[in-house]
């Protein structure tokens, strides 16, 4: 193969990996966002807590990969439910933005509390053997493939849960109308708690996979990731799980391709300009439907 082709194939693979990492985070984000239309600014920090949980489980308890992942997901799911009960539930009837700011506060709290306990960056032990194969000059790692497959798989599962199960139907019903749904015998509190548990559990899974792919973790790691998940979820179409996936791949793809093509110094400038154009051209997101505005 000529070097140019190899270069572009490698960059394409890089884009796929970064996109699927973003997707992993954006899925949980989009889940809560879609059901409750609440921008969950704490998601990035729950994700960070997930990474630290994973570190604890792997080092202090010495667990292998599968139990670590499950334990982390359980831990963050619990954290998500606790946060929802303590901080968001009392605000369910308040203006939407109150809950958003509360989420911001919860996120800052988690981040700074972790920082107070552990100010230094930590190394994540390799829980999975990360094999690297070279195909005609293109390097592919096993972790890359796992992350890509996992995010696709999770997307399908989530899609199924939301669209094909009774719980998912209840979730969509709540998203549709919060006043009428309890009258139809749907346990709103339980369903919302489940939504948060799933969303936070996914953040935990994302934290685990992320810290295996990029094995240096610190309390600040959730900040940019949180914003990028927000971008992916909105660009793809609010509340649309497949859209979040596509948004994440677009974001990852654009970030990689801008660097591949142009001087990387201008990356943020160009990436965010493109994003701006995209949102202005398609204001409802990529998979979002133009909602008819009621008069």
């Amino acid at each position, binding site marked *: 193969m000529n070097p140019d082709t190899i270069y572009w194939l490698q960059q394409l693979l890089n884009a796929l990996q970064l996109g699927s990492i973003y997707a992993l985070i954006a899925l949980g984000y989009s889940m809560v966002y879609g059901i409750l239309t609440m921008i969950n600014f704490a998601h990035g920090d729950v994700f960070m807590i997930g990474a630290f949980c994973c570190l604890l489980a792997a080092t202090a308890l010495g667990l292998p990969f599968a139990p670590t992942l499950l334990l982390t997901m359980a831990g963050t799911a619990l954290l998500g439910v606790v946060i929802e009960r303590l901080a968001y539930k009392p605000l369910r009837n308040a203006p939407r*933005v109150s809950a958003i*700011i509360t989420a911001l*506060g919860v996120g*800052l*709290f988690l981040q*700074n509390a972790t920082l*107070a306990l552990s100010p230094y960056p930590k190394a994540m032990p390799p829980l999975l053997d990360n094999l690297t194969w070279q195909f005609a000059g293109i390097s592919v790692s096993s972790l890359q493939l796992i992350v890509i497959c996992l995010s696709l798989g999770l997307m399908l599962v989530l899609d199924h849960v939301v669209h094909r199960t009774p719980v998912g139907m209840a979730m969509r019903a709540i998203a549709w109308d919060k006043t009428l749904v309890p009258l139809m015998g749907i346990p709103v509190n339980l369903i919302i708690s489940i939504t948060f548990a799933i969303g936070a559990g996914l953040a935990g899974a994302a934290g685990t996979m992320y810290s295996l792919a990029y094995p240096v973790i610190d309390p600040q790691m959730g900040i940019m990731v949180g914003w990028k998940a*927000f971008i992916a979820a909105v660009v793809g179409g609010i509340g649309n799980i497949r859209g979040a996936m596509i948004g994440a791949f677009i974001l990852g793809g654009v970030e990689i391709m801008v660097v591949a093509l142009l001087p990387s110094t201008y990356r943020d400038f160009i990436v965010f300009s493109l994003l701006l154009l995209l949102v202005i051209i398609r*204001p409802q997101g990529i998979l979002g439907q133009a909602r008819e505005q009621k008069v």
Partner: protein
Amino acid sequence: MNTRLWRHWEWLLDRPWLLPALLAGGLVLAFAIPQYQLFNNYIQLILMYIGINIILTVSLNLVNGYMGEFSLAHAGFMAVGAYTSALLTMEVLPVGTYPSLFPVALLAGGAATAVLGLAVALSSFRVRGDYLAIITLAFLMIVKSAIENVDAIGGPRGLPGIPRLTTLPWVFFWTVTLVWLVRNFVYSHYGRGILSIREDEIASDLMSVDTRRVKIFAFMLSSFCAGIAGGLFAHLLQFISPRVFDIVKTTEILIMVYLGGIASIGGSIIGATLYTLLLEVLRPSTMASLLSWLPAPIFDPLYEYFIRHLGVLRMVIMPLALVLVMLYWPRGIMGMREFRGFVPRRDRAAHHALDTPAESPHGTADRH
């Protein structure tokens, strides 16, 4: 307080001359404090931070509170104002010989920022809600990345050596002027337009509110104020860098807005003051000397286990306080309410009714 004193207090608060008198007193103090060193430089600096933060908070409240959008670009606006005015005073205007040219530089910074605000306003015609949040976030990132890539203005290394022109009287002057501007805007014909956009944009269009014009005005005024605040900030710190104006700064301003309360100028003043002061009071040595009157058996363990660690815990307590405030006052301390003195006389009766709201699950700000 006993009832009699309370009545006197109420009487005082009702006087029409109270606000002008307070302002005049403030102005005298603003000149007297640095002149006679009534407070040391540290307290003076904190007072100036409070002023700058009030400008930032009130102006962001215009867009996020009154108009019900969710803008994240405020730190970016601040950066544009800061860099424009700093470059003017450093390279163009002879402020060394004519310090009175400082407001010219600030106004130029504000004007440059207002142009950027116009761009955001234009994109807000097509996009609302969370999509506008993304657009403003992108604006912030673009501004930061642009500054990082221009080596002539220091790039990521920042711009040191800005003359120190910001003084307490200037901060007082700009704070009062800009708050007054925003207040007049909010209670003007346009201001009602803004409120109507928050409630229902389409309905207000049908009611022949020129929503586009109103939005342009609101965004431009808001970014103009942020630009001036940025200029004051730059000439106070004497050093700016793109890192100063990152997303964390926006978060800080957002917290001040929602802490104080949406759609309330008084709330913004409270929010900005409270946040700035709390950050300083929560320092270990300050806390220790504030609590030093406690008897030793209480103070010593308190110091050992709590105060000594405030350097780190400060940033844990602040967000916790924010969450608690939001739980007790979901709209912020003064959400949707206003100091009486800020409301024009003709509006007071109507406004008083708002003070005692009959909250419904679908409150006014619920739907945007």
